[in-house]
């Protein structure tokens, strides 16, 4: 399986990345992508800045292990994870996950699995700055429940 991981410190263009990912495929019939965007408002109101922090080297290593795990669970030709860090504003892409396989079910499930990992276990820390100040975000109960579907620790 081809596995690409990138931590982006600057804005990235998810569709250009996805086009490059697709064009490099040789036999896959199905590509599923997830793009996460900064929402203009959270439960705390309008968000002016989203801050994302990672643990350089360690975060990438753990994502690589999870991609390898996905490659054992599903027959994937390729998978891609791009995750932003730094300060982001509304509508900016935060994350792009893509999975390519011969058949669509594997591609859907692998992308879903990778997003559940990124939301609940990957080494990222997210803060929202709004009129109420800066708030560090923790996963919702739904994120943990989603991740538990795959039987992961």
């Amino acid at each position, binding site marked *: 399986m081809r596995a690409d991981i990138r931590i982006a410190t600057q804005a990235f263009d998810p569709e250009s990345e996805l086009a490059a990912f697709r064009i490099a495929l040789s036999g896959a019939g199905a590509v599923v992508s997830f793009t996460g965007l900064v929402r203009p408002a959270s439960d705390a109101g309008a968000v002016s800045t989203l801050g994302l922090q990672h643990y350089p080297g360690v975060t990438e290593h753990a994502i690589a292990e999870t991609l390898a795990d996905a490659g054992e669970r599903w027959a994937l030709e390729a998978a891609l994870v791009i995750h932003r860090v730094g300060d982001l504003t509304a509508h900016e892409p935060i994350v792009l996950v893509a999975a390519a396989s011969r058949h669509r079910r594997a591609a859907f499930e692998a992308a879903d699995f990778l997003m559940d990992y990124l939301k609940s276990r990957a080494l990222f820390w997210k803060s929202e700055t709004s009129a109420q100040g*800066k708030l560090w975000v923790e996963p919702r109960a739904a994120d943990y429940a989603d991740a538990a579907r795959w039987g992961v620790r």
Partner: protein
Amino acid sequence: MARLLFFGRLGDLAGAVERSIGLSQAHSVADLIGVLGQSDRLLASALGEDRIRYAINGTIVDSGALVEDDDELAFLPPVSGG
């Protein structure tokens, strides 16, 4: 010098993401938190919370693990990516 890394809200509490501390001998993570608590009880209390995980040189450890000079000790609060 050992490197201490404070992620997420712990960095706000510590006043910086990174701090160095000279260690003449190995200390457990719990002991180091105690040392930090002598100058900053609020920080030490946050570092000792149940849901904070510890990593030495990138590997998750428990609070009894030993930190030596030149090690990197990271304090990891609950994560939130994507």
